[in-house]
């Protein structure tokens, strides 16, 4: 019954689990383009005259808010089942909650202790030990930046800490590579997503998951219908399916937090309630994006 073109920044294992299920369920063929959210937005913008994609899938919501003209708001059929705390914007539909966490390989830390907070990461003993994705290329890395700026008393204090972390970090071009480096023992600490870290842990890697004590962002990953989508109906069906109970249970299996209130989290993870919640402010992150990225660039220019 036709096809749907999906631009996805979702991790491989999520796509592998969900897409065949959707195809089986609806009979719609999925054409998937995988890339970082930055690259996907570039493409959407380049193609805006004649859109190719129908849905953008699993990107940070602020990215969508930031270029909302490229998208068409849509309310899924089962919108009621979604945790309202995870659904802050009209422009997009949450798909899963993404929790920022540290993945730590104690063996690769040398003399340094296992860090427990953002402030720890800014300490000099972690110099060169931290793996972090670039905030200008990875949506989750931008969340990390906004997260740090939000959990301290003043934004200046946040910048102070972030600058320290930045200086200690080795930047990686993609967020997927961060836990890989920690797993391989090339670096000691990775700032990453809980589910990515979980996969390594489940694979028996010598790593631990640590939640920063100041608070961590619990951010919904969003999806949205592309304005002028060639297969808009199939796009809607895709979004509907992804918030369905069946799909959300699969989400849990691969280690992600569900958005539905009627689905439980993965048992290998601590309950969401025990995670120090930063009360991450999406609107602020979206509104200040230009300013924060300019500042980020300045740090980059300073440091290198």
């Amino acid at each position, binding site marked *: 019954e036709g096809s749907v073109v999906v631009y996805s920044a979702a991790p491989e294992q999520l796509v592998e689990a969900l897409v065949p299920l959707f195809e089986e369920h609806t009979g719609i063929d999925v054409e998937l383009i995988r890339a970082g959210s930055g690259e996907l937005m570039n493409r959407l913008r380049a193609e805006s005259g004649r859109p*190719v994609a129908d849905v953008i899938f699993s990107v940070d919501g602020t990215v969508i808010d930031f270029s909302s003209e490229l998208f068409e708001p849509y309310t899924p059929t089962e919108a009621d089942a979604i945790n309202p705390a995870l659904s802050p914007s009209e422009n997009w539909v949450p798909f899963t909650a993404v929790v920022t966490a540290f993945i730590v390989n104690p063996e690769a830390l040398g003399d340094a202790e296992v860090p427990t907070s953002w402030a720890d990461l800014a300490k000099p003993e972690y110099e060169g030990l931290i793996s972090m994705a670039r905030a200008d290329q990875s949506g989750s890395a931008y969340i990390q930046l906004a997260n740090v700026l939000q959990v301290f008393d003043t934004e200046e204090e946040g910048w102070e800490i972030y600058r320290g972390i930045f200086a200690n970090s080795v930047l990686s071009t993609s967020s997927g590579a961060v836990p890989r480096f920690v797993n391989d023992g090339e670096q000691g600490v990775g700032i990453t997503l809980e589910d990515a870290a979980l996969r390594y842990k489940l694979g028996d890697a010598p790593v631990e998951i640590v939640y920063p004590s100041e608070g961590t962002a619990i951010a919904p990953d969003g999806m949205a219908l592309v304005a002028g989508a060639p297969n808009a109906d199939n796009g809607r069906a895709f979004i509907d399916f992804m918030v369905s109970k069946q799909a959300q249970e699969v989400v849990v299996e691969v280690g992600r937090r569900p958005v539905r209130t009627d689905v439980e989290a993965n048992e290998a993870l601590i309950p969401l309630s025990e995670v120090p919640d930063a009360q991450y402010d999406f609107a602020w992150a979206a509104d200040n994006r230009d300013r924060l990225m300019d500042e980020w660039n300045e740090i980059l220019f300073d440091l*290198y």
Partner: protein
Amino acid sequence: MSSTTLSGPAPRFRLPGFWTCVTIAIAAILAIFLILPITSVFVISFFDARTGEFGLSNYVQVLTRRFYTTALWNTVIIGTLSMIGASLIGIPLAFCTSRFRIKGRAIVATFAVLVLVSPPFIGAYAWIMLFGANGAVTNFFGNFGIQIPSVYGIPGIVAVFSLKFFPYIYLMTESALSTINKSYEDAAENLGCNAFQRFYKVTLPLVFPAVSTGAIICFVLAIADFGTPAILGRGVQTLSTIAYAQYTSEMGGTPTMAVTISMLMIAISMAALLLQRHIMSTRRYASALTNLPVKKSLPMGRSVLVHAFCYGVVFLAMLPSFTVLYTSFLATSGPVFSGGFGLDSYARILRDSPQAIMNSFTFALIAVAAISIASGLISFIVVRRDNAVSGTLDLLLMVPYLIPGIVMAIGFVATFRHPPFDITGTALIIILILFIRRLPYGVRSTTSILRQIKPSIEEAAVNLGASPAKTFATVTVPLMMPGLIVGAMMSFITAINELSSTLILYTARTITMPVLIYVQVINGEFGTAAALSSLLMVSTGICVFIVFWLSDRKEAAFV
């Protein structure tokens, strides 16, 4: 007599000849698919990144901000050192294999070629797996308390580039050394030079054109490669990593800074090329080949040393490929290698990636078919028709060597997203960019074989009554066939491994293997990336084998 002359046919309008039409068609293709995209990229770099005003502000920014100037220096330093490193490996290796009897010389040469055509990007990760802080080799030596130098930073990048690009120097120098007139070396010896003096006073200057051409290729590739410095740089910024980061930045918009930086890279490459041309223009080396060099047998002791060096170098350079091959057979549990061997990774790529595999082969094959036809015709124009157009064509075909794939791709997007040329997102745009980027390989091969075919053979056909088009089809093409096939293989190998431009142009329907490998690698999915890479290496290896089998000067066909 005069009456016969009068009754002769009156002068009549002559239709443009076959070759005139072909020349026009080729010129049009190159104008649209080469010059137009490059021009549109060039134009972009003059619009201010923020304000959109026309001017030099981007260049001012790039040339004054410390961040960019440091990167510029890093780039030049990495390019230069890698070029020197590759020469220090490539020249001695070429000397050994061309002047001494090396057992299994073919193996050395084959490995050198395989190094050239190993899949892009994944190699740098393989180096980390071996020599990283927790790499296999590092740990092995660590057990004995031996500290291996870090693979990170500029030294690591330079080392990796030297090992990755030395085959260009090796292959070019080797072929030059084995066709150099031995009389020169005899003369030097006769005039009192010992072996070493002979090498640096006579032999080396004589192969300078080949060495420097190889070196330029190394330099250009080293400054355009973004994968290796991105992975091994650890904070070292180069123009290529910045260009790529800027292009893929979340902020989106027109990739103005990326383009400006790329222009700088092109300018550096161009400067290097012009410098080399300038040096070469003051020398001329044509000489008759009356006295071919011979390979000497060495006494046992020295022979062992030489063999160890030759095999050591190519083995070291092949290490990442071996690592990738090995990795592809490891059993996996999610992203983690669970210990032991298994075919999980292959099972996964067969399940998930048939589209990419299909695409890779289809696109490369179609592009190669087009390249073969075009290069046959172009080489005829370049070699046989000695006029302004042919000279320009020859020069124009150097351009794809100098333009990084990412720039070409940005140019394609900028040029072909408006009607009537709206082909973004189609297979056609990928095939076209493969065609234009790999065309020089085909043309170079056919041109060199056509130069060896005496024009009198074609004239003989015309003289016997065959029209120009028929002569080309029945005489020129069959004679060019070996060159056409080698050219086709070369463009196939390079087209199927193309990453930098397709990465920007691909869509779900048009994803290719190298792109998929890239995506997998940055997602940390090593197993599948390794399996895909191995598949690519095997298909490339088969082509290499065919080229070896068909071409006279074997390895020389690859440079």
